[in-house]
């Protein structure tokens, strides 16, 4: 029997303060109020309930995201990691922990490496003070540089960083200088996300009232293109809309999502997706654990399955998602894989839409793959929606 690869995501739901653009499930807390052990017990409890559906899976990657996982005690994190490894009887080949510059120093980075973490993902966002201030970040440019440098010095620990672009008055020079600085500090991979204003955030509220200064779409596009133009000279591969890597530094965990692999989500507010026994047959189900920290912890103490909101995914929906995610990557979407996974021919019913997109140079039809040429990535949503 071929083993099904599995990615595991663990949600750590605390931040020192909420960022005004962020709409992930997280609570702002003081460090002393974090229930480190109790939350670890909660996650281990949820893992026990979910494990039976995943007996044929092989553990590949673990990603601790949030929130701010670097606020969680290393011991608690380690205990969860050990439980995951024990459950699947294997070590993951990539174990990533998201960190904020304010909660990452050389000691913590070393401690993380010592418990088996292979990669840290640092929320730098920008190295320009006005932009950091606009984004409501707690760190300054210097502490961000220091955090990245400390982590990058540690043998056996890869470093990826998040950058944001599209802040008002941001120039291409600033963005490029940030990216270059990160590479010089030893980062092998970064993600660059265009600032997205989400409705249920402070930014969303300001934007509704017309009081959020923003960079016009055209200028945001220029930033994206400026970074793209530097990839070749710097030896970077722009391998997904928002992701850039030096050779051999690509992240595996996100790749799992893009390939449509199963992933186990653990922790309050986490999302997971894998095939489960439904009323008649096995079916892919995406679920989100209900975001209620106190209750999640109580369920952990009582050894009860935490509440979730399940969403069964039919084959057509899986095809859409496969296209949506695959077309954001440089390789494009592998049609045979998608068909094997869903039982549907992804081209069926899309012949005209594909032909139209190809004719407009929005899509390359490579027979085995469909791919959006990099020059059109800026309008990828438009192109993908056309294939839905």
């Amino acid at each position, binding site marked *: 029997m071929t083993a099904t690869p599995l990615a595991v*995501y663990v*949600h750590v739901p605390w931040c020192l303060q909420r960022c005004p653009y962020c709409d*992930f499930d997280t609570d702002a807390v003081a460090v002393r109020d974090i229930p480190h052990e109790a939350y670890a017990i909660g996650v281990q409890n949820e893992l026990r309930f979910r494990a039976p559906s995943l007996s044929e899976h092989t553990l590949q990657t673990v990603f601790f*995201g949030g929130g701010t996982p670097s606020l969680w005690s290393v011991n608690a994190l380690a205990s969860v990691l050990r439980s995951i490894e024990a459950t699947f009887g294997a070590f993951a080949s990539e174990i990533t922990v998201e960190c904020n510059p304010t909660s990452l120093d050389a000691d913590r980075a070393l401690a993380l490496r010592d418990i088996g973490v292979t990669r840290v993902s640092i929320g730098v966002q920008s190295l320009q003070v006005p932009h950091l201030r606009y984004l409501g970040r707690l760190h300054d440019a210097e502490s961000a540089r220091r955090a990245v440098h400390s982590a990058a010095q540690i043998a056996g620990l890869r470093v990826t960083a998040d950058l944001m672009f599209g802040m008002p008055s941001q120039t291409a020079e600033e963005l490029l200088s940030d990216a270059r600085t990160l590479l010089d500090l030893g980062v092998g991979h970064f993600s660059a*996300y*265009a*600032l*997205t204003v989400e409705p249920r955030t402070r930014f969303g509220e300001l934007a509704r009232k017309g009081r959020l200064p923003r960079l016009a*779409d*055209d200028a*945001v*596009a220029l930033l*994206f293109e400026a970074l793209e133009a530097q990839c070749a000279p710097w030896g970077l591969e722009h391998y997904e*809309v*928002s992701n850039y890597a030096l050779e051999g530094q690509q992240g595996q965990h*996100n790749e799992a*999502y*893009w390939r449509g692999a199963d*992933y186990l*989500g653990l922790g309050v507010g*986490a*999302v*997971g*997706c894998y095939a489960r026994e439904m009323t008649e047959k096995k079916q892919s189900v*995406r679920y*989100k654990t209900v975001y209620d920290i106190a209750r999640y912890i109580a369920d952990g103490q009582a050894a009860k399955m935490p509440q979730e909101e399940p*969403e069964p995914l039919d084959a057509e*929906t899986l095809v*859409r*998602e496969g296209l*949506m*995610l695959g077309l*954001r990557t440089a390789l494009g979407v592998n049609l045979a894989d998608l068909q094997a996974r869903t039982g549907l021919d992804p081209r069926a019913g899309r012949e005209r839409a594909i032909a139209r997109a190809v004719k*407009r140079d*929005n899509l390359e039809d490579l027979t085995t793959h469909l791919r959006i040429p990099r020059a059109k*990535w*800026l*309008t*990828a*949503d*438009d192109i*993908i*929606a*056309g294939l*839905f």
Partner: protein
Amino acid sequence: MASDPALIRNFSIIAHIDHGKSTLADRLMEFTGAVTQRESREQLLDKLDIERERGITIKAQHVRLQYKANDGLTYQMNIIDTPGHVDFTYEVSRSLSACEGALLIVDTTQGVEAQTLANVYLAIENNLEIIPILNKVDLPSSDVEGTRQQVEDLVGLDGAGAIAASGKSGIGIADIFEAVVKRIPAPKNEENKPLRALLFDSWYDSYRGAVVMVRVVEGRIRKGDKIYFMATQREYEVVEIGVFTPFARALDELGPGEVGFVAANVKSVHDTKIGDTITDARRRATGPLAGFKEVKPMVFAGIFPTDSSDYPQLRDALDKLRLNDASFQFEPDTSEALGFGFRCGFLGLLHMEIIQERLEREYGLDLITTAPSVVYKVNLRHGDPVLVENPSRLPDPGRIESIEEPFLKVTIHTPTHALGAIMQLCQDRRGEQIGMQYAGTERVIMTYEMPLNEVVFDFFDRLKGASRGYASMDYELIGYRKGNLVKVDLMVNGEPVDALSVIIDREKCQKRGRDLAQKLKELIPRQQYDIAIQAAIGGKVIARESLAALRKNVTAKCYGGDISRKRKLLEKQKEGKKRMKSVGSVDIPQEAFLAILKIT
């Protein structure tokens, strides 16, 4: 056996939208025990979903109640409900002429409205006895005495005879019935004359075909009778006769003064002209009842499926709607931009909105509706005048001698605070004031003559806007007048989009052309390439806008595995695209075809 006409009372209920007509009708039914409170659900008289949602009655309905009066006699009460909107004035007038009296409902929290007045005048023209009902007296904001005074001052009725009532709590219901018995005249007993019955409503029933509502004026109508429709000149045999109590109940006959439904294997509602006279085929009356008028659509618009493969479904849906709506017309139409569709004729804008909504809601169709147009009479240099109801079909300007357009007399009722804004609006819309009358110190009634063309371009909404919702209007067609009109064409990427052509006043064409191009630029989403938008008159470009190519439409993140959310965003984007029409290679959304309604 038909009832003694002396014990029959036929009346209708006149009210402005939201003044509580349906609720009051429900109370009347409950009071006589015709329905229980539970049965009445809400507002039994409004059948269609859209009616219930909008709180207005589109098709007239009827109910017969038995009321035991204080004089010890039991009366047959026929309530004839009237449609409540400006588009259906003729239907209202026919329903009213089936009655001897009317209840005029005035919301005491709102006062008298223009619409109410228009229908009151119709009732007065039909010599009806009017009983004013001061409704919603149980509400804290009710002003009973002020409204009573308005009834005297504005409507010219005796305020002392007005009855205070509340449909909601049932106050005054018994008083209303007693007043109906005492004040509304009984129908005349014209039993021995040949049959003359007024057809005042019809609908389609899949078992019975077109069923008609009639008021017998003279003679009798019996099951099995051969009857003759005088306007359509067709003969039928009566298969079924009955009344609604409000549940359908079969009868053998209807006598003078009675109201009921007749089924006679009439195939289509289009053979049942509202206002027609039904007589006995063997003993025909010498002439029809007065007041018949052929109803003609006043407003036209193209309706096209967004997805051209939906054309057959659209045709079927239109066919079905027409089954029950004699005033709705359509015929196949083609547009270079929109492909195959239909040119549809409506009584007015509300009628148009309702049809479009029903097509989308009940039949699940995605539609493009073009801007409404009126029927122009185009006098040619050579040859007979032609009627044009589609701007894109206007003959070449060189052949046109003159264009005539339909004019309306518009009556506007407004609080004085909005007077200035409304006068400005009417002036902008080429209105000519022909009358102004103060009604008390706070309300004004203005009369204008105005081209229908200006009224269909969103006049009603603007009137509401200018008066913060307080003004109301009514209109009637007064004939055709010569206008100084030109056709403005719109081009998208050099291709003329025929469905966007509009006919407008020459004096305003420059500004409106510019505004239109600008509005289109706003309404058409940025696409993968630059788009040029031009407005032109007869090939001469009067305005140009350019819409830059879409630069960025890609979501930043796909994070933490919450893929559903992103997928749903794209699905929504796709849905939005489905509602657009590809013209050439440009996707144009539905709103853009109505851009003319959105400019001032």
